[in-house]
Structures are given as C-alpha cells and as structure tokens.
C-alpha cells in the first residue's frame, strides 16, 4: 500500500513537472547548463579570453554561494574565434547537441548577428558577453541581449557630447575605421555633434590594416578642427597619436575611444612621446580607471581564480553579462523557463559596480549599457573627468 502511494506520488510529480522540463532543455532541479563562448584563439583572443574567464568566475562564485534556487550553474565553453560562421556552429552545437538552457557569449558583433536568426527561431535566449553588438540589439528582438559595455553608438554619442560640452568643440573631426564599429561610431558622432550645435569638419574612415595615417591626419589638420576624436583600434590608434605629435597638433585636444587604448600605459609607451599626450583624453565604459579603486575587487578576485594570467584591459567587461544572467535566473524564480527568463531580463536595472552607468533592459531595449566616462591622460597620470556621458538611445539610428 505504502509502495503504491509512493509510486503514485512519484508519477504525479513526474507528470506535474514534465511540461516545464520538456519545453526547456538544459535545466534540472539541481543544474542549469549555460553555453559560454568567446574568441579564445586567433587575432581577437585578447578581446574575449579574459572576459569569458571573468564570466565563468562569476558563475563559480554564484555556485559557491549555493547556486540559484538550489541549482548549480554548469558552464560549457567554446571558442568562436570571432568568425561569424564558427560562432553559428558553436551556437548550434550548444542548442542542438549540448542542449544548454541559454547561450551566453560573443565578443564581436558580426558573430552575434550571424547567430541571431537561429536563436530566435529556436527561442533560446542569447546573452552576449562583451560584444558591442549594434547590429544584433538594434532593432531589438526578443531573444538577444547585449551591449553590456555599450554599443558603438554609445561610443560615438558620448565622444560627441564630451567633445562639444566638456571640451567646448565648435568644429569637431572624427577618424574611424571602415568597418561596422567605425561606421556606427562616425554616424552617431556626426548626429550628436550636429544636434549639439557643433560642425563636423572632417570624418575620415581608414582601414584597420592602415600603415600610414599621414593623409587622413593632414586632411583633418587642414579642416582646422578644435577637437579631434578617434575610434581606431590599438595599432592605428598609436599611429594616429604619433602623427598627431609629429605634426605638433597638441593645441587641439585628441580624444581616443577605449577600443584603441586597452592598456593606457602601453599606449603611452607605444606613442613614445609624452609631449604628444599634453592634450589627450580617452573614453571608457567602466565606472573607474581600469586599475582604479572601484575595479580593484574584481582584479583581486580574478587573480585568485587565474593566478598565472595577467588580464587584458577587457577582463571586467565580461562580468555585467554574467551578473545579468544570474539576476534574471534569480528573479524568474524556481520555475524558470526560457520565456520567463527573458521576461525577467527585460525588467533588469542594476548597478554592476563594473561599468559607468546602470545595466538595464526593457521590452523595447536590448542594449544593456549606455554610459561612458572620460579620463585625461598625460602618459603617466590619469585624471577622471567629471560627469558620465550617456547615449539617449535615439541618436545615430
């Protein structure tokens, strides 16, 4: 009799819990499986590897504190090399072979865009890692969340606002790359600067492989700007800094976006001429200097997890997305499904203690962060400029 009751109870329990389980793979009473990916090899590994390890660290910390609603997080890691077709392969492997509950990853926008159609069709939430993700979050779609350190529109908009409001630019110039980053940067920059009443006197697009920036800088100099901004990547950013110094353009402020100056001390060393940095600023989506007091606890924690690894400047960028995932899982409750996980994601609005502004989503918003700070840097000392510059979510659309 007792046995029969127990069996019946077990069967009933199985029937009751079955629908949720059958609908959404990758989740059991004791475990949630998350597929985590980033470039871990190839040219862009420095951009993704540490961010991925930081996200993994956050999940392990969460597990140490007992997990979420009694479930531990299990992470499966893959390398997409930032190649769109490989990212699609990885995402398809996660969803159809490993059967993960959600997909978390991507350090490059094209990779995220390439995977978007599939995750949407399969109705699997995709939370990006540290990709700026413009193309995948604008326009917003239900299953894809990203831009945890801001879109490239945020970069362009905050540069324009800083150049016009703080540096009092009336005639501003931008030098950007001819890729997805640069096009988003320069479009938004032009829109915001114009809206604020400044004139964009030069907008130069250069190849990321450029070997001589004499021509674009001469063009910019000839346009006689009072602020120059650059959103170039590290190597071209240094070339720009050097030429700017050579042509003695220091009375015009130069503002560099974060993608070109992951480690400011290395940048200064590479420019090799501190006089060139007399009037130099850089933007950052973080809440502090890369090694500033507010970032220290993350750096210390990372050291504890990965003692042999000297993190790149992009390490902490991986944290807010993992925080968003654990918060949404928490909020969605014990009976979390992919759909109510998304509903929970949409209501998030929290301070990550990593980046400058809040991390927030809404029904019609899929880019998590919109704020930047600016730092004056003379080659040795960093001085935080006052204020946080925030994209309004409209300019440059």
């Amino acid at each position, binding site marked *: 009799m007792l046995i029969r009751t127990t069996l019946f109870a077990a069967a009933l329990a199985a029937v009751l819990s079955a629908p949720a389980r059958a609908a959404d793979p990758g989740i059991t009473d004791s475990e949630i499986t998350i597929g985590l990916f980033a470039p871990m090899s190839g040219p862009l590994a*420095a951009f993704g590897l540490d961010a991925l390890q930081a996200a993994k660290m956050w999940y392990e910390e969460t597990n140490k504190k007992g997990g979420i609603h009694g479930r531990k997080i299990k992470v499966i890691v893959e390398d997409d090399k930032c190649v769109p077709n490989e990212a699609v392969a990885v995402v398809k492997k996660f969803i159809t072979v490993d059967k993960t509950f959600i997909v978390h990853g991507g350090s490059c926008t094209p990779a995220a865009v390439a995977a978007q159609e599939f995750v949407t069709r399969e109705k699997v939430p995709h939370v990006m890692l540290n990709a700026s993700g413009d193309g995948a979050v604008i326009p917003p779609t239900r299953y894809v969340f990203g831009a945890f350190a801001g879109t490239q529109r945020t970069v362009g908009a905050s540069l324009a606002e800083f150049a016009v409001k703080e540096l009092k630019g009336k005639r501003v110039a931008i030098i950007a790359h001819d890729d997805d980053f640069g096009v988003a940067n320069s479009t938004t920059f032009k829109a915001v600067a114009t809206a604020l009443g400044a004139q964009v006197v030069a907008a130069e*697009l250069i190849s990321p492989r*450029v*070997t001589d920036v*004499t*021509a674009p800088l*001469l063009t910019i100099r000839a346009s006689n700007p009072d602020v120059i901004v650059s959103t170039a990547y590290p190597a071209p950013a240094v070339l720009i800094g050097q030429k700017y110094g050579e042509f003695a353009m220091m009375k015009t402020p130069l503002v560099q976006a974060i993608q070109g100056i992951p480690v400011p001390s290395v940048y200064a060393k590479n420019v090799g001429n501190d006089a060139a940095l007399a009037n130099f600023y850089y933007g950052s989506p973080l809440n502090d200097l890369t090694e500033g007091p507010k970032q220290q606890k993350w750096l210390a924690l990372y050291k504890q997890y990965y003692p042999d690894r000297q993190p790149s400047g992009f390490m902490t960028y991986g944290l807010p997305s993992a925080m968003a995932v654990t918060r949404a899982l928490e909020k969605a409750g014990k009976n979390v499904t992919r759909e109510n996980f998304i509903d929970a994601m949409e209501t998030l609005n929290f301070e990550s203690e990593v980046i400058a502004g809040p991390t927030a989503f809404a029904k019609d918003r899929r880019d998590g962060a919109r704020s930047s700070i600016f730092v004056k840097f003379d080659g040795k000392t960093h001085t935080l400029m006052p204020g946080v510059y925030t994209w309004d979510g409209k300019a440059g659309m």
Partner: protein
Amino acid sequence: MSPLLLQGVASGIVTGCVYALIALSLVIVYKSSDVINFAGGEMVMLGGYLGMFALLWLGLPYILIFPFAALVIFVIGALFDRVVLTRVVGRAVPGQSILVAMIIGTVGLSYVLKGAVRVIPYTEEVRRLPPFSSGAPIFIGPVVLQHQDIAIVVAAVAIMAALWAFFSFTLIGKALRATSQNPRAAALVGIPVRLMSMTAWGLAAALAGVAGILLAPKLLITPDMGVIVILALAAAIIGGFVSLPGCVAGGIVLGVVQNLIGLYVSSRAISLAPFLVIMIVLLLRPQGLFAGKAVAKKV
C-alpha cells in the same frame, strides 16, 4: 607644391622604403625558387619580435639585435627551403604545377610563425620597439620627419647598396645570380645549387627580419602585422618583380600614391590602392613600370 602635398610625398617615401625592403626579400626568393613567399610578412613580424625580445629580455645592445634577429631568421628561411621546399620540388608530379604546393607551404609557414608568436602572452598587446634613433623632429621646409624616418631611408639605401655589391662582386653573389638564371648550367660549372637556394632563402628571410626591426618602431608590432606583405607584393610588381632596384622604386611609388589617394580621393580608398596598382600594372605593363623589355621567361 603645397605643404600638404610635400608632407604627403615625404611621408610616402619613408613608408615606401619599408615596403621596398620587404619587396626585396620577396624578389630574392622569387628569383631563386619561382615562388611567392606568403610568409614574408610573418618573417618581418618575427624580426620585430626577436629584436624586441633581444633588446628587452636578453639585454643586447641595440646595434646587436640586427645581426641576432637576422641570424635566427636566416636559419629559419634556409631550413624551410632545405626541409620543406626541396622535398616539395623533389616530389613534384609531372604535368602539375608545383607552384600551388609551394605557395601552400609558405602559407603554412606563415600560420606556424604567427601561431608560435601568439602563444606568448606578451604579444597580446600592440607593442613598439624603441626607435633606433630618436630626438626632436626634423624640419625640412614645411615637411616634418622623425629620426627613425631618416634611419629607415638611410638603411634602405645602405641595404640596397650592400645587396648590389654582394650580387655584383662576391663569389656567392655571382653564384646566386647564375643559379637563378639557369640552375642546370650553374650545376654543370660546379655551383652547389641546393646550397645556393638555401642561401637565397636565408638571405631573403634575414632581410625581412631586419626590415621588421626597422619598421617596428614606426608601424608597431602585432602577430598579425604580416598582412603588410600585400603592400610589398604591390611594390615588387610595380618594379617588375624580378628587379631589385625596381622594387625600391616600386615601394616608393606605392607609398606616395597611397598618400596622394588619401589626400585627394578619400582615406577609405587608401587600402584599395595596392590592389588596383597590382591589377593595372600586370595587365598593362607586366614587366613593371621601370623595365624596358618584357620579362624573360625561365626555361
């Protein structure tokens, strides 16, 4: 000429000398083994890193990092020829071009070199070798140049002269030329053809490595900087691909043309310039801009 134009030309000449040095390396390889060395850019990259490691980690004086890097890369180049290419050529299938296999071999080498450098965490950040000579910028009229720029031009000229002297006056140089023109006849008169091919590869590789040290302070080094080989190819083609002085002229023409396009067309078109140049020159003047007669075909 406007100051803008003068600066663009001066700067183009300096960058062009860098292209020319790499182009010289490609042409030496081509003359010796009829193959395009797609690992040429990676040899440049390796030279830059070796120079940097020797300077910063081994503490060698600056002047010694040139022979150090040159020697290491000479060995790599010579070994690649001896171990890989000799085998590929020796096992050639009749009727099938071995060019493809050889080129894939060099592409393989480029991945190996890039991959070997990339596993060193230090290379994750963009690095710059301290300049060979530094100081306040030099003004020539309205044109401003850096000490390193002058050093690059001087070095390019010196290397050119040294190569010319080497190929004209030394026994090895003459033997190399003989082998390149007719390997069978060279073998008949007792020139060790295989050794000559190794020497040519080593020499070309060392040249690329030295170019790497020269340009590392100017262009910075990353494991992916090898793409610069494209510009060197364009320079070599302008010069006719078999002529050493042609290369130097070709490099300078390319450097200047890129800046002129950047100034008067658009910055975006700069990266298109080398490809257009390659296509136009090959279709209209396959012998290069500076050669008088058509390229002699080797039998």
